[in-house]
């Protein structure tokens, strides 16, 4: 198959960017979208042009590094997959495909399709952990966790931290990402002692990074490659409200 690509090219942070058109010829439908970009890049290198910069690593949908908006949708047309698991069979011969970086105030573009998502790391650093140092942990079975609770925690923990939720949100909100981590740790008995502090600090850090407010459109869940449920946002809002009331200055 043959497709035309309209790709966002931008020299660096703050530079002026624009769409450039490239033709991808004789593409095998079984290629992944990123393998198609590899082929285009090989041709660009041979022509002496700079290849398209894009983030990727594991190429099996778990590391969360890949981050393209394809035809207006973060991670492309297929539901519940990352960019790296999007295959060319999802497109038709002759299609024009528009490829952009994840766009959000909190994710500045570094080059072409590469953005800086370190804001997510700083939110985790604010409270996305259980404060337990190595050594001295009790026996694993000394902390029983019902299967139902373990399953809820795992559903939330499946987040790959890619940022598609932010890119999909018209407000550029990180609520789904933050809620997934708050919920995972707050439902587990291990996370209970820091439940309030975690909710307060992570929400505060999220706001400080310049993410917008929740739009309540659920675009985040629709774009999430792991299908993380917006119910976790409700859970976090409750934890946050309780924490706020309990910690209200006298």
């Amino acid at each position: 198959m043959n497709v035309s690509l309209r790709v966002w090219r931008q020299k660096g942070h703050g530079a002026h960017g624009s769409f450039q058109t490239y033709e991808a010829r004789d593409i095998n439908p079984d290629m992944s979208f990123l393998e198609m970009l590899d082929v285009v890049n090989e041709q660009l290198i041979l022509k002496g042009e700079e290849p398209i910069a894009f983030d990727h690593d594991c190429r099996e949908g778990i590391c969360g590094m890949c981050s393209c908006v394809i035809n207006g949708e973060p991670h492309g047309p297929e539901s519940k997959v990352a960019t790296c698991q999007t295959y060319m069979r999802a497109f038709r011969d002759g299609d024009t495909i528009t490829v952009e970086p994840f766009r959000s105030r909190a994710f500045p573009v570094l080059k072409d399709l590469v953005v800086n998502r370190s804001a997510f790391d700083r939110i985790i650093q604010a409270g996305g952990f259980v404060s337990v140092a190595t050594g001295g942990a009790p026996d694993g079975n000394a902390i029983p966790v019902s299967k139902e609770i373990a399953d809820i925690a795992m559903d939330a923990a499946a987040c790959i931290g890619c940022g598609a939720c932010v890119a999909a949100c018209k407000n550029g909100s990180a609520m789904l990402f933050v809620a997934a981590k708050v919920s995972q740790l707050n439902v587990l008995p291990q996370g209970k002692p820091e439940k309030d502090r975690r909710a307060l600090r992570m929400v505060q850090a999220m706001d400080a990074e310049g993410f917008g407010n929740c739009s309540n459109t659920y675009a985040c869940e629709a774009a999430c490659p792991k299908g993380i449920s917006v119910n976790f946002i409700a859970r976090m809002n409750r934890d946050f409200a309780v924490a706020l009331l309990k910690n209200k200055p006298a």
Partner: protein
Amino acid sequence: MKLESRIPSGPLAQKWDRHRAEIKLVNPANKRKYEVIVVGSGLAGASAAATLAELGYRVKCFCFQDSPRRAHSISAQGGINAAKNYQNDGDSVYRLFYDTIKGGDFRAREANVYRLAQVSSNIIDQCVAQGVPFAREYGGTLANRSFGGAQVSRTFYARGQTGQQLLLGAYQALSRQIGAGTVKMYPRTEMLELVVAEGVARGIVTRNLVTGQIEAHSAHAVILATGGYGNAYNLSTNARGCNATAIWRAHRKGALFANPCFTQIHPTCIPVSGDYQSKLTLMSESLRNDGRVWVPKRKEDCGRPPASIAAEDRDYYLERLYPTYGNLAPRDISSRAAKRVCDEGRGVGSGGRGVYLDFADAIGRLGQKVVEERYGNLFDIYKEITGENAYDVPMRIYPAMHYTMGGLWVDYNLMSNLPGLFIAGEANFSDHGANRLGASALMQGLADGYFVLPYTIGGYLATLKPGATLPLDHPDFRKAIEDVAGQTRRLLSINGSRTPDSFHKELGKLLWEKCGMARNRQGLEDAIKTIPKIREEFWRNVRVPGQGEDLNQALERAGRIADFLELAELICVDALTREESCGGHFREEYQTEEGEALRDDANFSFVSAWEFKGLNGSGRWDLHKESLVYEEVHMAQRSYK
């Protein structure tokens, strides 16, 4: 050079406890006066960085990804072993130790493996305390499953995303320290040189992958936890960015490389579909708990739809050849068995390089819902890649390069032969011998980072004066910076007619053919002649566009491929020198009548530790041997029949 393994004396079961009791300690008030560099933020790197910072050391941690959470440990699917014996099925530290030694075909260091089995239990406790959502039984206790090479159920798991969850646990512990200011994190930063002054590791030189800035970092100790070198084969289950550059540059600076030919081919991966392919995707070994592996008995049936082939016309070859372990035979054995049936012309799928992994019986026995709960995400991945629904038709799988047991040589303290340079996780050679068992990589990475290095590195630091590190304007730092800048300039100036990836593909194909699942003298000699030619052409004809002072992914890849082009030669030299078959190293000349690996304990029960001598002469490496002395275990021919 004499290799000092520094294995503590005394009975095997007491070595680690005794050693810990005797290691010199660093005064708590002095710990903040020591700086430690950790390169890599996977299970081993993140756990080491977090734990060392918790202890009070000042830590700098580096990763090439945009966040430490993305290290390739995240892709591990199936689980992590621990000798908890929660299932009451006869597991023990000794049994985990023995299974690991035997699984490694008696080519691992006994004392290290015993220690690994001992601390395995602590890892589970630590991860549970961090909030890792392991699978649970209804009663609230931890669930287990079985993995290859073991007859007990000792594998802990978090759906099919165990590596992700363990890594996020370590990442969160690391994030807590970054937030507290005890670890300084350098994402999108690649180590390009080790700085060695008077034989001691004193720091590293890095390149900022966004700005291209080359920087030097000085420290009292350097830990490399940068993973394996499976990507030398180009197509592997490793992430695209995985590379050997950190360990290779350390090797060029004097660190010995041990057992490079011990590479693991994983039996259950999605088969190659075309030339454009950039990586191979693993289907977790845990699938072999419930999936049955088969090919048609007759070649003529290979093209037929699998459902139309009657049970009596199918060859469940693993169950036939290895009735005791069946579909859970170890990886090296299962991979070779798959190669054999495909070589006989009985492979399935396009190109005939594939075997079926069939869940029809499991779905009939357990119902689709249970199978979905156990393996749902793996079935999803399979469908995304192949477009086929494995609930209806059997998966097609074929072996692929997956893990490297070899790595930089370390002593019992995980220190290389260069004082001050420590190696952790897959990057070292220490625990898996010639073959790694499933669910043991996660165990080893976390053992090294949480429970071994934090003790042993203290013993080294206690011998140094606290405070000043080597100044950054020291001649050895200046030279290392100039070397890195020089290589960058050179790569950008060649302006040839081939892309970096084209060399990687050429090298990978050669390695897979000549030094893959089966090796022989002729093939290895050919490869050793061919690789320097590819290397020569690379440095004459590669084309790397763009600038050095910029985000330049072609430049990054070119540098890594340049290192693979050297490492690949050493892999083949080691494979040629080891005239026996053991674990993942299968020399066709050395096999039993049934086609199993034939070890030669009299002549080859040693660790090959290679010293780099320069690429220009004919003797590019010198071989040093550490003989493997087994005090506890009797070396036996490995049988899974």
